[in-house]
């Protein structure tokens, strides 16, 4: 593990065009410092994988025209409404969607973390139209114990994931403070992990954290110090979502003519 600037971390650990996983749930803990770095340098994203509920970390990459296809159970802005760029890109046919639900995504990441090639779906999915429209992620499998046919979801290993965590110690261990969401699981499934953190602490300072609340340094490739770097989303226990700044993004993203100005203005330098 190394402590790097965002530019170096993204350049070194994300291969343009490969599968990128982005952490953060709803309007919390989006790794915006790292995402802005991708936008600023206009790095193409082959496939974007999100947590079960992404917001601006996905919509911004789509707005910038960088994403070829997306695997996500939800892109939206929760109480602030739909995701403008995502909506427009899907409705126009510019963005390929790999339809998936929260359960299948979570289990696919679990399987990816364990060398497990696929997971049979629990009840529920079979009553939806989802697996029929996504033959890349869903196939029929025969349960060898009962002979029954059911849906299976393929396992998932993002080439790189970007996460926002609370703290890293100087040895590169990271801790999640309150909610690990599926971010921690995404790190287990990833081939490379880049974590932006709010704070750096001395080595050993995380030794009192519970096992499920940390990631050991050997699962983390690079740490980027980025206090406030999840804005305009919030970071639980540190800052709330900035609804005004989110609104400014939404207004720009709804209007392609204003979008270029927004990207130029906000992408010019350090994180917002």
């Amino acid at each position, binding site marked *: 593990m190394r402590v790097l600037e965002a530019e170096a971390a993204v350049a070194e650990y994300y291969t343009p065009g490969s599968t990128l996983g982005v952490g953060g749930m709803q309007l919390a803990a989006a790794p915006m410092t790292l995402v802005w770095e991708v936008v600023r340098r206009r790095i193409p994203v082959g496939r974007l994988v999100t947590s079960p509920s992404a917001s601006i970390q996905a919509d911004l990459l789509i707005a910038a025209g960088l994403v070829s296809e997306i695997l996500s159970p*939800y892109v*939206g802005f929760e109480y602030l409404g739909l995701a403008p760029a995502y909506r427009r890109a899907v409705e126009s046919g510019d963005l390929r969607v790999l339809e998936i639900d*929260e359960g299948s995504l979570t289990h696919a990441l679990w399987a990816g973390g364990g060398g497990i090639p696929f997971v049979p779906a629990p*009840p*529920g*999915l079979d009553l939806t*139209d989802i697996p029929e429209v996504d033959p890349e992620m869903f196939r029929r499998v025969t349960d060898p114990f009962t002979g029954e046919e059911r849906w299976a979801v393929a396992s998932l290993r993002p080439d790189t994931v970007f996460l926002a965590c609370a703290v890293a110690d100087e040895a590169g261990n990271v801790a999640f403070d309150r909610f690990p969401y599926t971010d921690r699981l995404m790190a287990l499934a990833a081939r490379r992990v880049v974590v932006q953190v709010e704070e750096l602490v001395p080595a050993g300072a995380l030794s009192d954290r519970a096992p499920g609340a940390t990631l050991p340094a050997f699962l983390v490739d690079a740490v980027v110090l980025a206090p406030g770097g999840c804005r305009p989303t919030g970071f*639980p226990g540190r800052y*709330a979502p900035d609804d005004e700044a989110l609104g400014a993004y939404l207004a720009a993203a709804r209007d392609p003519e204003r979008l270029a100005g927004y990207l130029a203005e906000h992408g010019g330098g350090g994180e917002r």
Partner: protein
Amino acid sequence: MSEWSITELMAVVMAREFRDGEIVVMGAVPALPMAACRLARATHAPRLEFIVGGSGTVSPEPPSLPLGSCGGDLAPAATTLPLPDVVLLEGRGDAFDVFCAGGLQIDAHGNCNLICVGSWDRPKLRGPGTVGLPFLPNTRRSILYTQSHSPRTLVERVDFVSGPGHPAGPDEARPYRKEGPSLVVTPLATFDFSSEGRMRIRTVHPGVRHDEVLAATGFEPAPGPEPGETPPPTDEELAILRSFDPAGILRR
């Protein structure tokens, strides 16, 4: 009788529907179902527990209702589950009792759709995505709600099933033999389901006419008992509700 907002009425209706000891799960924008759960806990269902969205918090009691489902204002809670465990248990089928959900479209059989209006490959409207709605049939029952009661929202058949409701017709077994959707709450009325799994008007909210409900509904509800008026919030219910909604989220 105090004045109350439609959203407050909806919260009260949902609260009355919960039974003591039930475990409730909810997703994004949790203020309404969370208010309902807290009201139920404060009245007839003290042992009800609820899990708030991606936070995994169990029955949090923040000083004010949260707008979002994953924020720091949901902590601390007495306990919190990591999100992957919540997702896992939603598949188990006997861990949770009630799923509170909605959709861009809800159809006559209680199917929900958060994916798209129109065809999937070239949608007229792309929704955010289905999140956890495929697990709807895995809780013992579900309570559906929408802030928009219109023929575009309440449709005969959803354009895409992303949250399964009752199977259409009397002959098919209900999925997994659980209860399925038991109640739909809108700004105009409440609905339950016929024995054939088709939505029917249960009550009409105070000040709303029956024909207004029909005109706003994109399908013909199943015949049922004469709908009464939705009992409005009592002063006590309203006082409790507002005690944890000092910012008036439910009155916006």
